[in-house]
């Protein structure tokens, strides 16, 4: 019984690992209205973008020759000639002529496949409601913000928790140098730069995000360890508050910045507050991240003009873009480990950690293959409770295939290995798990998607919670 309680307790923060997604407002039907174009101009099946949509995003929500594409005229806050005539005049810019707002809803049913969950059927109505704003203001500034209502049931539990979080950033485009090479972003950065470019949570077909990005260092359960507080390293690969520089060329892109990963509300825990800004930390930004990607073949990353394949032999579809891409991601950070014990003693130490990942993606006609590995090391995640550092390895392989433009079956295998210390009271040292996801995304309409997806786990047998075999049915609507 004691063992059970210990294991259950130490796994508590894993309870919701795969149930919590990093909400990412990456679907913006406002742009359909602005350009009078279908969602599939920019998305394979939203939220996953195609090459055109990626270039549009990386250019600060602008097409090349944006004026030609735009059907809604922006409001000018100054004619460009003013600056030419009076160099010290306020720089002219534009405002979108309508509030650039979009709404996204997710409605999720969860069906227990293993007989382990408290509730065999759960319906989250809604699981998420997002209000997203974002657009370009003139040639030099773009902005983004979202407010997301989230409702989770925690592995089929009777209690459904809900809260609201938000993200916001402002980007200054083409600050110096050639076009698109040096852009400066402030706010909730890493919304697309955190993690591997080829395996981004904002760009997946699945109902839940990649395991390599959503796992967090398992915490010690204070109740089972004689502690009153264990405040560990809360880092996950989520968007974080800070500053970022990014750029894109025809074949390459980068994003890097200064952030703090020691966040107040990590995405893999129930937040303390009913409303919070994603990725905000009490520490000043001092962690570094860098994302790189290189594309071989296919359409240019920056949306620049590219002659298409031989016109009469082309077999085009909006999702096709034959190419190979490699991506790298690195993160170097530190977090405070604060421990209070029942005797009133307090200790504080630093956990220096790093992550290093390599990703690969190949696309040929209707088939896309992806693989990624993310290595990590935390030098002292448990402070005085254990001197042992923790090595981690997470990897995944995935494939999806367009059977029809509206039907995309997919499969993904993921593995997470944590070299956790043994002998720490309140910490289950065996928390490795593998997961296989099999499902399909169906585009009922370009802006209405449905998923049928099953997740199966092969975990260390001691893990009692949070890794239940489940069938998900998702309805995803954007308007």
């Amino acid at each position: 019984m004691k063992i059970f309680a210990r294991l259950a307790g130490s796994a508590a923060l894993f309870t919701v690992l795969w149930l919590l997604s990093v909400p990412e407002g990456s679907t913006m039907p406002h742009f359909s209205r602005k350009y009078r174009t279908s969602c599939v101009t920019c998305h394979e099946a939203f939220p996953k973008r195609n090459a055109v949509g990626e270039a549009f995003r990386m250019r600060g929500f602008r097409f090349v020759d944006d004026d030609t594409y735009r059907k809604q005229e922006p409001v000018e806050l100054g004619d460009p000639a003013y600056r030419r005539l009076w160099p010290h005049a306020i720089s002219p810019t534009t405002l979108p002529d309508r509030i650039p707002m979009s709404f996204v809803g997710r409605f999720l049913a969860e069906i227990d496949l293993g007989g382990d969950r408290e509730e065999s059927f759960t319906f989250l109505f809604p699981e998420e409601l997002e209000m997203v704003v974002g657009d370009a203001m003139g040639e030099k500034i773009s902005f983004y913000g979202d407010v997301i209502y989230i409702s989770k049931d925690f592995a089929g539990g009777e209690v459904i928790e809900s809260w609201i979080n938000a993200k916001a950033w402002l980007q200054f485009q083409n600050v110096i140098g050639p076009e698109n090479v040096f852009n400066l972003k402030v706010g909730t950065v890493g919304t697309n730069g955190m993690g591997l470019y080829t395996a981004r949570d904002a760009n997946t077909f699945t109902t839940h995000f990649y395991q390599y990005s959503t796992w967090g260092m398992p915490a010690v359960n204070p109740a089972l360890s004689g502690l009153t507080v264990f405040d560990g390293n809360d880092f996950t690969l989520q968007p974080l508050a800070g500053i970022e520089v990014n750029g894109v060329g025809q074949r390459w892109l980068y994003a890097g910045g200064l952030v703090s990963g020691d966040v107040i509300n990590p995405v893999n825990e129930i937040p303390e507050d009913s409303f919070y800004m994603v990725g905000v930390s009490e520490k000043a930004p001092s962690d570094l991240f860098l994302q790189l990607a290189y594309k071989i073949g296919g359409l240019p990353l920056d949306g620049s003009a590219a002659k298409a394949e031989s016109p009469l032999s082309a077999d085009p579809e909006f999702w096709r873009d034959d190419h190979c891409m490699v991506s790298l991601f690195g993160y170097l950070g530190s977090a405070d480990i604060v421990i209070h014990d029942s005797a009133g003693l307090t200790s504080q130490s630093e956990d220096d950690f790093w992550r290093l990942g390599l990703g690969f993606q190949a696309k040929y006609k209707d088939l896309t293959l992806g693989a990624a590995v993310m290595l990590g090391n935390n030098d002292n995640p448990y402070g005085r409770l254990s001197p042992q550092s923790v090595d981690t390895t997470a990897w995944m392989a995935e494939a999806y295939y367009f059977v029809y433009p509206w039907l995309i079956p997919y499969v993904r295998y993921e593995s997470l290995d944590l070299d956790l210390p043994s002998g720490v009271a309140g910490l289950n040292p065996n928390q490795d798990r593998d997961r296989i996801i099999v499902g399909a995304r169906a585009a009922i309409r370009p802006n209405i998607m449905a998923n049928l997806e099953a997740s199966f786990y092969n975990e260390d047998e001691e893990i009692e919670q949070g890794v239940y075999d489940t069938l998900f049915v998702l309805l995803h609507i954007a308007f």
Partner: protein
Amino acid sequence: MKKALFGLLLAVAAWGVASSGPAQLPGAGAVAGIVAVHKTRVKTTGNKSFKDVVVYLEPLSADVAPPPAAHAVMDQRGLVFIPHVLAVQKGTTVDFLNSDNDRHNVYFLHDDTGQTLDIGTWGPGQTVSHTFDRTGLVITLCQLHLEMAAHIVVLEAPYFTLAEIDGESQSARYAIAGVPPGDYTLNVWHKKLLMKDGAVRVSLSAGETKNLNIALSK
């Protein structure tokens, strides 16, 4: 007075069309008039409005002028086919341009048979030509941009004109000039409406200009 003014307008319109229409034959005549929307209204604004009406004459004889050597043009600009409606004679070659920075595709759906033809995908500044050798409505799509669509009306003879319905009056003037004497059927093509009383038989003598008003209804 109104009739005289209208007659003058018809004459001017017929002359304008004749100057850019099919090759002029000695004794060619014209058919002109007003196309009016009857007991309904059509939207005449936006990229895909219902303002375009193709008014055409089908010869009852098999004797038809050859197709023009000059190419017609359809552009893709700002994710829009321009023009939205194009009328051509059978055998005409149409140049499909791409004035966007994006790739575009052109995919035909023959309205009467359901047959399809993908003529390819091409990049900015490139052009692909296609000769239409069968009459009928060809719905023109871009597989890469689902909202893009145009209508190409392929006609047997060169005796047609494209009229644009005015949003306020819900009517348009039309004039088909350069029509050789003979027997024809006057008909229209519109995305949504039909000739209220069906196609009309027209007999045209040498040099004659016939005034025929057309009512369009659902």
